[in-house]
């Protein structure tokens, strides 16, 4: 920190310099106002100037530089006065004012006065520099804070999660953009405790009690609940929060997030439903197999017969299931069911004539019809139209009448086969055809053992096909 000295006349400058030297105060002599202006611009510590030197046009440049000082800076001037204040002209007073921070020392110079004035000016100037340093530091910190906040917002708004934060008492005072994008509510409208209203009514109480528990104990918060989406639908989200503690262990804030888990949750629910449905179907199928095996064994002539019947009947069931899986499990087409049931019995000899419209048929009915056709064809191969080359079987079905009382009719008529005799007892085949099939269609079924050929007719309301 040094002192610039401008005192062009006489020995004032030299005397002042020596005096300051002795006091260990650095100084430079400015030969002109222009040079002094240069020192001022370069933030000199203080200026010692003779009043008579402050004239001429260069003074304007100095005044300008003084005006342009940064806010913290005010170069102190010690002016060696000409005469007394009362003798000073108005113009001279203005010039003095233009220096902004000037004290007057009268001449002749008194050494101690001068040194004290200079010291005081330099001290003040040092304080200015210190103030500047503190200000710069503060500005830097402010900038850092601003940048860190901007960084936080950039991160918080870039993640897929909704992020929120609360005061230690649970008062919500921050949500990231995702929260507002998801919920569609106006900024700030869910501050405080209004967030709870965004939850599904059935989840509000549960969420509140969990949150209260976390606030009371500091335990992490975790809960799955339904959050109201801007579309008006509720979507499953996973809510989590953790407290941030001070060095003394007190909770300063809570930071939380919500993750949209709706798709995962729905997929999981569907998987559970599907598993339950599969289990139900498997159990049902096993119950059917159980019934078929018991029934077959009950009426079989020999174990060998029973084995063959059980195998072909279960094989038929398996085949019917294949087709149901290929369609949607709930419905298939009747012509496909008939065709598939007849395939194992087709010999290429043109026994079958099949006619009927392409009607939808329920899974249970499809299975029952497959089983019944299998029984009819097996019987025909043993005793009926499929046992000789000339035998014919006419299979036809249709919907008779329309509307509520529309009737579905399905016929199986054998001809040109061996002469038919009334069987001595009713086996599972015929019971399956008459009782079971009729039951599945909620209608009636009848087998006729006419001499010219066995025939069978199933009648039900047409809604029996799919009900």
């Amino acid at each position, binding site marked *: 920190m040094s002192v610039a000295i401008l005192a062009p006349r006489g020995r004032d400058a030299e005397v002042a310099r020596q005096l300051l030297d002795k006091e260990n105060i650095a100084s430079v002599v400015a030969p002109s106002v222009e040079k002094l202006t240069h020192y001022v611009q370069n933030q000199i510590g203080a200026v010692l100037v003779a009043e008579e030197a402050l004239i001429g046009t260069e003074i304007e440049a100095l005044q300008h530089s003084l005006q342009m000082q940064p806010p913290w800076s005010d170069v102190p001037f010690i002016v060696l006065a000409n005469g007394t204040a009362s003798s000073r002209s108005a113009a001279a007073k203005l010039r003095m004012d233009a220096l902004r921070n000037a004290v007057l020392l009268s001449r002749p110079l008194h050494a101690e006065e001068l040194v004290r004035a200079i010291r005081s000016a330099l001290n003040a100037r040092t304080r200015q520099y210190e103030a500047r340093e503190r200000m710069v530091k503060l500005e830097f910190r402010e900038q850092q804070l601003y940048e860190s906040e901007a960084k936080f917002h950039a991160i918080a708004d870039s993640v897929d999660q909704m992020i929120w934060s609360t005061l230690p008492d649970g008062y919500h005072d921050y949500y990231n953009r995702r929260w507002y994008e998801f919920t569609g509510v106006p900024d700030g409208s869910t501050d405080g405790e209004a967030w709870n209203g965004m939850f599904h009514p059935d989840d509000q109480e549960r969420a509140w009690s969990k949150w209260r528990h976390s606030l009371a104990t500091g335990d992490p918060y975790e809960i799955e609940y339904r959050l109201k989406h801007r579309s008006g639908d509720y979507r499953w989200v996973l809510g989590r929060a953790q407290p941030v503690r001070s060095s003394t262990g007190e909770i300063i804030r809570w930071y939380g997030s919500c993750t949209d888990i709706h798709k995962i949750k729905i997929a999981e629910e569907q998987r559970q439903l599907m598993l*339950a449905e599969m*289990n*139900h179907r498997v*159990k*049902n199928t*096993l*119950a*059917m*197999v*159980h*019934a*078929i095996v*018991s*029934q077959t064994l*009950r009426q079989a002539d020999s174990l060998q017969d029973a084995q063959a019947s059980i195998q072909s009947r279960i094989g038929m069931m398996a085949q019917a299931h294949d087709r149901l899986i290929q369609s949607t499990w709930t419905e298939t087409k009747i012509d496909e069911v008939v065709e598939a049931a007849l395939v194992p019995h087709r010999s290429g000899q043109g026994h079958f004539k099949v006619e009927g419209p392409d009607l939808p048929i329920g899974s*249970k009915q499809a299975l*029952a019809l497959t*089983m019944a056709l299998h029984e009819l064809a097996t019987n025909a191969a043993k005793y009926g139209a499929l046992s000789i080359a000339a035998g014919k079987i006419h299979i036809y079905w249709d919907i008779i009448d329309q509307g509520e009382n529309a009737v579905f009719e399905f016929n199986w008529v054998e001809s040109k086969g061996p002469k038919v005799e009334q069987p001595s007892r009713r086996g599972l085949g015929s*019971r*399956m055809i008459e*009782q*079971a*099939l*009729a*039951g*599945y269609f909620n209608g009636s079924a009848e087998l006729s053992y006419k001499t010219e050929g066995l025939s069978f007719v199933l009648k039900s309301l047409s809604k029996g096909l799919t009900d």
Partner: protein
Amino acid sequence: MASEDKSKPAVLIVEDEPLIRMEAVDMIMDAGFKTYEAGSADKAIAMMELHDDIGILFTDIDMPGTMDGLKLAAYVRNRWPPVAIIIASGVVELERTSLPEGSAFFPKPYATSQITKTLHDIAVRLH
């Protein structure tokens, strides 16, 4: 096939799957019981009203219509308290408390011997 025994109570078999119902009817008839059958809870109640010799209800749970087997069992227990109830079902997660008190439960598919033993035990108890 054992002959029908007048001293035994008649059994009402309620099952919506015709094939399974057919087998259940045969099984219970073979055990020497008179049988009635119904494909739904509504039809079962009509049967109960019509035949006062029914002493045992043998029902499935999962059935279409307004009433499933559990509701039917509860209804029967309430309206005809002496009628014994046997429930058979493939339902996986069943709350035992949802069954009427004193009723027997068998998972499907069931063993014939278990059902006939239970029927005979009930017949002895009711006699």
